[in-house]
Structure formats: structure tokens, C-alpha cells
């Protein structure tokens, strides 16, 4: 892509190179492990090697004798602060019975559960201490399968009396009637495996308690700085303002980072108790066994249709494997699977029942497009199976059922617990599919479906999607402050996890305010500079915070024009602010430099005495979500002898309403597609029957590398701006991943049609493909 170092507006829409890159490419960025404070201690977490066991005794005496080991905290040390990690979203009744304690006491329930926290003068010594702690366990049988767990023969928590943590159901239209009237019914069971985001930087946390001031500064927990501060302040029984959450640079988020885990409570606790800064950096093995896992669920899906392919109803039973404890996201992942299961199609009757089940595995949380990746796989596989049964071209079947532009805004109904109805806000779904087929040269590839050439079978797969973006939490804010000498500071209420806010938000501010982009510096993720905010997740950064920047910029511009009008002696609406200069609309008079206004106001002593201040704060509110949409297309070749599938060609078409920076959007789309391809073809968190995690290193848990994926095609459409925000934008972070499982599974099924393979579960690893070829059920 042609990139730009643009020096004049409009900036929105230009593929401007990132301004934040300099510190990263020179090694000068500050990630959490780069923070080094005087008297800093180091923590290491002792984790359970057992999946399910009673703890009879913990003996720390030998560990404490090691010189340099300062303290070992166990559950009893927590005293009155022994609260569990709270649920913050999708708090379905019943889930509260399965909260995670900060440190295990009576029982451990998954491999990796924190049992003790060692504090020492170095990380090396802290790990020595872990080796010297003696714990007496009594093993209990483990349960790692949802259906097995639902039998309640082995209870994860005896006091709950059941492993079914919660059940949620909803119904839209008259599903039973639709099934009675249907000419065609099909029922299938699908499964999506367990995998997770694996940001390249593991989790980490530095907490520094200043006992003089009674204040705590923390680095490392980003994504939701304000909510995290609120939760930790409540835990420590301290006023929020005495906690300072500082966002340092962050090595990727993808849903997993920035949620609160036991360690995020324990490290501040340790710092307060010991009166010294404490650092904890997770290693990769810990990350794979302790940070949120994601996805894993099963879906029994039934479809009712007419013979001509018109879908009448869906009925879905979703079973979410929550792991041993329900973490901060509550029931989000399985509930979101059901929420968007109907996707971009007209499904007038829809019923879903979601079971959230606990097992002896690591807790479940979000990973990029949580639930939507899963439901896209279920739905798009079902569409293909229907098409085969009804002898209709799969593409035609999709066009027949896609919601037409004139039906939009389209109300799906209430699909999320305690939320307003799901309303698809804007879009032309058939147009996106047509564009995808054309760009991909689908008609040329179609004759290759199922053909054997040079030892490999060829197949092409399609997946249509919608993805909710923005919204979710009600607001975000931005504050713009003018300084002397053309200095504009923009403070965001959200954090950055690699997306490029320092560039994109500067583009939005420059256009809204009417100043050159290089005057602007963007700050983010610090609770001291913006008192209120939510965070960066669900592709909501640009939608919510970008809109706040736009509003603040526009309002500040009005203030400045009023000031200039007063100075010049004309009406404000006779003036225009452009590229940092104030022009008179009707004359050729020499423009006034903005800095002259700023200097006068700053130095005349009139600040707060009638004249507007040189700053503006705006909050953008929205309870509704915007829906990006599009199509994924995959073309693959499969070696039937080895089971190895190669992705030859991949395309993502996504309409995001309006593109702020096409360079960054292209990066989001390609990067998330590769994450999805890796997750579909390489990655799986595998447990054995005893609940041991078999994939505890990157040698067992395979992340995609440059030779595993082809170049990804990406088409960004701007046909349907969102009516729900002033910029017309929709989020671009997740559309690239949402259809990967579905498109690849469809491509594989088409390639191996000769073997009558219809993929019903993921991942698509060579061993599983081989098993299907040799006749095992999918």
C-alpha cells in the first residue's frame, strides 16, 4: 500500500505511516518488564501441577531459608482481603458460585492454579523459592469434557452441587411453529476447540506502593485501565484516586491481556504489605496454563427451511466449557456465540439455550471475535450442508437468505442477556458477497472444487459474517488541550495495545479541530489524565473514543473561532479554522495564526473569567453497536496422504463504514486473518483425561509463522457508514478473524468431497484430517 507522511488535511482516509513506530524500532519502547524501580522485589507464582486435588498442607519453611527470599504468601496471608476475582460482564445467575480465589486453599481445580506467591530479591531467587515449597495434595478425579461434566459425577465445586454454572435462553418469533411447517429440517452437532490469543508479550505487572503518600502506582494491566483501577481500589479498600494506573507499551492484547486475574490482585497486595515495589512477569508456560483460554464450545444446531432454501428458523443448544472458574468475562463467550449465530441472514425465528459448564481446565475469556468466530463456523457449515441437501448452489443459498439492504436497519431481536435488541445498523450484505466473489475470481476457482491435481485436492470455501463493534460499554472520552507554540495534546480514555491510536486519533483530531496533524500528540491509558473511561476491546476504540475526539475537536474549534471573532471584531461564523490558521471567509485578508489566540488567552489572565478555556472534553455515548460485515474466501490444497492442508489464497472483504487510516485497517485485517488461520489449522490447548495440559510450550502449541500462511487479500469497503456515530465508522479489529474457521472448513469439505468429508469440528490439523480421510467421524 502506498503510504504517506501527509502534512496537510484532510487526514481522515489517508494511509498515514504510524508516528508511534520510532520507539519500537529503536528498542526504546517501555514494556512492563522494562520498568525497573529502586528496591524492587520480584514475584513468582507457585501453580498447581494437579488438575483436581485437595490441599492438605503447605510448608514454606525451607523456601524461606533461601537467602534473598523475602516472603511467601499463601491463602491464609490474605486475611480479610481474600476476595475472589469478580465477574464484570455477563453476570448470569449461578456463575457467582464459581469465582476464582486469589490463591487456592482447600482445593485446586486446574493445572496452573495459583497456590502461593514467592517474593524475592530477583526472579531467579523467587523461582528457587517455588522449588522449595512443599505441598501435600490428595488427587481427585478430573473432568475435562462438557458432557461428562454435566453428569455431575465429579463436582468441580461441591457446595454448588452441579457443574452447570448457569443456563441462559431466549426465543425470537415462533420457532416451534416454524419447525412444524418446515419442508426441510436438519440437525447437526458442531464443536470449536480451545485456543487463545497468545500475545507475544506475556502478562506482567509492577506495583509500587508509596507508604509515605499512601498511594499505589501500577503498570502493566491495560485494556480497561479505569475499570481495573476501580476493581483493585475496592479490593485494597483504597479510594480510586490514590491508585494510578499507568499504561506502558503493550505487546498485544487480543482479549486476553488487561483482564484481571488473581496475579493482578496479588502483586499490589504484596507491594502494600511489603512497602516495596513488586514486579511479576509471566513466562510462556504460565501464560498457556494460566491466562484465559478461549472459544471452546459445542453447538447442536437445527435449521428449518423451505425446499427452495428459504431459512425459517434456527434452534441452537450451546455448551460452553468455562474451565474451573468463571472469570471476569462471565458468560460472554458462549452467550456471544448464540447472540450472532444468525449472522447476516434473515432468520425470522430463532431460539437458543446456552449451558455454561465448569470443568477442570483453565478459565475461559475472550479472544478476538469471541463467540462470533465460533458461531460463524456453525452457521456457515450448516448453510453448506443445507445447500448440498437441497441441491442449491451454496452461493445462491446465501444470496437468497442474506438480509437485503432495504430491510436494514434490521432487528434480530433480544439475543444478549439483559441487553437491548440486536439491530444491524447499516449495510449492503449482498454487495459485499458479490465483491468478494469477483475479487477472488471465484468462478475461475469453482471448477477446481474437489479436483485432484499433482497429488492434492483443491477446494474453495466461503463464509459471510457480521461483527458487532463499538458500544458494549456506554461511553468513551477525549480531552484536547492547547499549549503554546502549536502544541495540541489529546488525552484518550482508552488504552492502546498495538492498534495505532497515536496516529489514527491524531488524524481525527486534526480534521475536527482544523490543525496540522504534526501539532498533535496523543496520550492514552493513564487514569490520572482522564478520570473516566472503559477501554479497548470489541473493536470499539475508533467507534467510541474516535467519536469523542471528533466531538471534542469540533467543540474546541468553535471556542477558538469565538475567541478569534472577538479579537478581530467579526462574527464567529464568518471565520474558518484550517491547518492551524484562522481565515476570514469573505475576504482575502492574511489569516491569523492560531497561536496568537492561544497566547492571548493564556497570558491575559482571562482564563476562567468569561473567556472559554483552551481545552475541551467530550464523551461519546452509545448503547447501540455498529455491525461491520463482509465475506471470507479461502482456496486450499489438501494432501490426502499426509492430511496437510495448504492455504493457497485468502481474501477478506469487510465494510467498516468509513476508513480513518487504510494502512492501519489493512494491518488489522491481515493480522487477524493470519491469527484465525493459525487458530484453525495449528493451535489447540489439549488436555488429557487427567486434566493435564499437554500444550504448555510453543513447541506443542503452534503459532503461525511466515511460511504457514499466504499473503492475505484485504478489501475494505465504505458503502454503509454507521448512522450511530458522527464519523460513520465501524470497528476493524475483528472482521479479519471471524470467518476464518468457517471459510477454511468449507474449503476443506469441498476439497475432500470425494471422501464424503463434512467438517463439523475444529481444528483442521493434519492428524485430524487424516483421521477423517480414513473414515473417522468429523
Amino acid at each position, binding site marked *: *500500500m502506498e503510504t504517506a507522511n501527509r502534512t496537510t488535511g484532510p487526514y481522515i482516509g489517508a494511509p498515514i505511516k504510524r508516528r508511534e513506530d520510532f520507539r*519500537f524500532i529503536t528498542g526504546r*519502547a517501555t514494556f512492563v*518488564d522494562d520498568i525497573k524501580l529502586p528496591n524492587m522485589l520480584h514475584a513468582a507464582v507457585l501453580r498447581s501441577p494437579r488438575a483436581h486435588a485437595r490441599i492438605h498442607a503447605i510448608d514454606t519453611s525451607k523456601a524461606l531459608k533461601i537467602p534473598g527470599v523475602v516472603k511467601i504468601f499463601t491463602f491464609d496471608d490474605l486475611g480479610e482481603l481474600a476476595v475472589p476475582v469478580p465477574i464484570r460482564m455477563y453476570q448470569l445467575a449461578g456463575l457467582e458460585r464459581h469465582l476464582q480465589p486469589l490463591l487456592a486453599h482447600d482445593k485446586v481445580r486446574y493445572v496452573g492454579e495459583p497456590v502461593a506467591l514467592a517474593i524475592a530479591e530477583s526472579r531467579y531467587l523467587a523461582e528457587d523459592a517455588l522449588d522449595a515449597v512443599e505441598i501435600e495434595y490428595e488427587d481427585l478425579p478430573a473432568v475435562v469434557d462438557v458432557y461428562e461434566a454435566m453428569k455431575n459425577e465429579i463436582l468441580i465445586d461441591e457446595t454448588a452441587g452441579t457443574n452447570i454454572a448457569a443456563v441462559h435462553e431466549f426465543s425470537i418469533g415462533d420457532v416451534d411453529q416454524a419447525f412444524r411447517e418446515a419442508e426441510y429440517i436438519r440437525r447437526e452437532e458442531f464443536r470449536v476447540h480451545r485456543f487463545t490469543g497468545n500475545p507475544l508479550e506475556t502478562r506482567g505487572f509492577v506495583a509500587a506502593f508509596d507508604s509515605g503518600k499512601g498511594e499505589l502506582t501500577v503498570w502493566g494491566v491495560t485494556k480497561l485501565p479505569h475499570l481495573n483501577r476501580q476493581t483493585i481500589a475496592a479490593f485494597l479498600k483504597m479510594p480510586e484516586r490514590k491508585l494510578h494506573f499507568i499504561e506502558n507499551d503493550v*505487546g498485544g492484547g487480543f482479549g486476553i491481556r488487561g483482564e484481571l486475574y488473581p496475579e493482578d490482585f496479588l502483586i499490589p497486595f504484596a507491594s502494600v504489605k511489603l512497602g516495596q515495589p513488586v514486579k511479576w512477569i509471566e513466562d510462556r508456560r504460565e501464560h498457556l496454563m494460566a491466562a484465559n483460554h478461549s472459544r471452546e464450545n459445542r453447538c447442536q444446531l437445527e435449521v428449518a427451511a423451505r425446499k427452495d432454501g428459504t431459512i425459517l428458523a434456527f434452534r441452537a443448544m450451546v455448551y460452553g466449557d468455562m474451565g474451573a472458574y468463571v472469570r471476569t468475562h462471565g458468560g460472554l463467550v458462549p452467550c456471544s456465540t448464540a447472540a450472532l449465530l444468525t449472522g447476516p441472514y434473515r432468520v425470522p425465528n430463532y431460539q437458543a439455550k446456552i449451558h455454561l459448564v465448569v470443568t477442570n481446565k483453565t478459565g475461559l475469556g475472550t479472544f478476538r471475535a469471541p463467540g462470533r468466530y465460533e458461531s460463524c463456523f456453525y452457521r456457515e457449515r450448516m448453510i453448506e450442508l443445507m445447500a448440498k441437501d437441497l441441491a442449491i448452489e451454496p452461493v445462491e443459498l446465501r444470496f437468497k437468505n442474506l438480509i437485503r439492504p432495504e430491510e436494514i436497519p434490521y432487528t434480530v431481536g433480544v439475543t444478549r442477556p439483559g441487553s437491548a435488541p440486536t439491530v444491524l445498523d447499516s449495510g449492503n450484505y449482498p454487495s459485499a458477497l458479490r465483491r468478494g466473489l469477483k475479487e477472488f475470481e471465484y468462478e475461475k476457482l469453482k471448477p477446481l472444487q474437489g479436483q485432484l491435481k499433482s497429488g492434492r485436492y483443491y477446494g474453495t470455501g466461503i463464509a459471510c459474517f457480521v461483527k458487532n463493534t463499538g458500544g458494549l460499554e456506554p461511553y468513551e472520552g477525549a480531552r484536547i488541550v492547547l499549549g503554546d507554540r502549536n502544541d495540541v495534546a489529546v488525552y484518550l480514555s482508552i488504552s492502546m495495545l498495538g492498534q495505532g491510536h497515536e496516529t489514527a486519533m491524531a488524524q481525527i483530531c486534526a480534521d475536527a479541530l482544523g490543525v496540522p496533524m504534526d501539532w498533535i500528540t496523543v496520550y492514552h491509558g493513564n487514569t490520572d489524565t482522564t478520570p473516566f473511561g472503559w477501554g479497548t476491546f470489541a473493536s470499539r476504540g475508533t467507534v467510541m473514543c474516535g467519536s469523542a475526539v471528533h466531538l471534542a475537536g469540533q467543540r474546541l474549534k468553535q471556542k477558538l473561532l469565538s475567541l478569534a471573532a472577538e479579537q478581530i471584531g467579526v462574527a464567529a461564523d464568518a471565520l474558518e479554522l484550517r491547518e492551524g490558521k484562522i481565515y476570514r471567509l469573505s475576504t482575502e485578508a492574511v489569516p491569523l495564526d492560531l497561536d496568537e489566540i492561544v497566547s492571548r488567552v493564556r497570558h491575559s489572565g482571562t482564563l476562567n473569567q468569561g473567556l472559554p478555556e483552551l481545552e475541551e472534553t467530550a464523551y461519546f455515548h452509545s448503547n447501540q453497536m455498529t455491525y461491520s460485515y463482509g465475506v471470507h474466501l479461502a482456496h486450499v490444497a489438501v494432501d490426502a496422504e499426509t492430511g496437510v492442508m495448504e492455504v493457497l489464497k485468502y481474501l477478506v472483504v469487510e465494510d467498516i463504514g468509513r476508513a480513518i487510516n487504510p494502512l492501519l485497517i489493512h*494491518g488489522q485485517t491481515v493480522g487477524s486473518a493470519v491469527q484465525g488461520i493459525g487458530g484453525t489449522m495449528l493451535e489447540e490447548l489439549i488436555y488429557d483425561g487427567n486434566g493435564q495440559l499437554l500444550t504448555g510450550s510453543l513447541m506443542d502449541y503452534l503459532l503461525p*509463522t511466515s511460511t504457514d500462511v499466504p499473503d492475505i487479500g484485504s478489501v475494505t469497503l465504505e458503502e454503509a457508514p454507521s448512522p450511530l456515530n458522527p464519523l460513520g465508522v465501524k470497528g476493524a479489529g475483528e472482521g479479519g478473524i471471524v470467518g476464518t474457521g468457517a471459510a477454511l472448513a468449507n474449503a476443506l469439505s469441498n476439497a475432500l468431497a470425494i471422501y464424503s468429508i463434512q467438517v463439523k469440528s475444529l481444528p483442521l490439523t493434519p492428524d485430524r484430517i487424516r483421521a477423517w480421510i480414513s473414515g473417522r467421524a468429523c
Partner: protein
Amino acid sequence: MSAKQVIKITVNGRAFERLVEVRMTLADFIRQELDLTGTHLGCEHGVCGACTILVNGEAVRSCLMLAVQAGGARLETVEGLANGNELHPLQRAFNDHHALQCGFCTPGFLMTAVAVLKENPAPTREQAREAISGNICRCTGYQPIIDAVVQAALELRGSQREPSK
């Protein structure tokens, strides 16, 4: 366990003499003892490549070496790549192609690429793809990194000639 040894080492042209624990990894030594935190640790078991540095000109995973094994060696890290504020062509190319998002893997990719281009100053796109396949990036999908390596190679050769396919 806490045995110590003195090592002499040159990092980015500067000589250091330090007493180190023999069990300390080279990566931890660079980061903790020399405060050169541009070298990152993504897995600490030699898979992700974030900790890649040059040891006597060769790309090495500094998490898999002990500091004492590097005694007497000449090391180059990402901090030594730019000449003051004048960026190395690879650094410029990474910015031009949006070859980083979170930036955590970037120092490892840059140092790998320095070694790659020394060995093959004119890589094709496919050769560049192969050459960086030992490093993991979770954000970009690799395409822009490959483009950046090819562009930097062109610039380093001082030629506008397209590499042979």
C-alpha cells in the same frame, strides 16, 4: 547455584566487564545488567525469536545462551542499529510498510533481518519469507515484514533493480 564469574563483553561497540551469576541467561544479562531492554523475551524457550541478537555477527536467541557463554564475544542489539537518530534502512522500511503493530517482536525481527541480509543481500520475497520464519509476530500477519525486508535489501544494495524471482 549462585556461582559467579567475570565476563568481558562488547555490546554495540562498547566494552563491559561484569561479575555475573553463571546461571543467568544472556537475555537477562543484557536486559537486567546492561539495561538494554530493547531485546525482548516472548517465550524463553527459543521458539519466538523476540530475543534475537547478533553474537559475533550471527543471529542468536539470547534466551538460550548463558551470559558466561558470551564472554569475549561481540554483541549487537537493536539499540545499536540506528546511527544516533538516523535509522537503519530496515528500521525505515518497517515504518514504511507498517511492519509492526504492538512492536514487541520487532527488535527480534530486525536483528534476524540484519543477519539474513548479510548472508543474502538480494532476497526474493519468498526467500525473505523463509528467512524470517523462525520469528513469531502475533499482529501483522508477516506480509508487511516481508515487504520491509525486501525494500531494505534494495536500499542497502543501493540499487533500484528488482530482485530476481
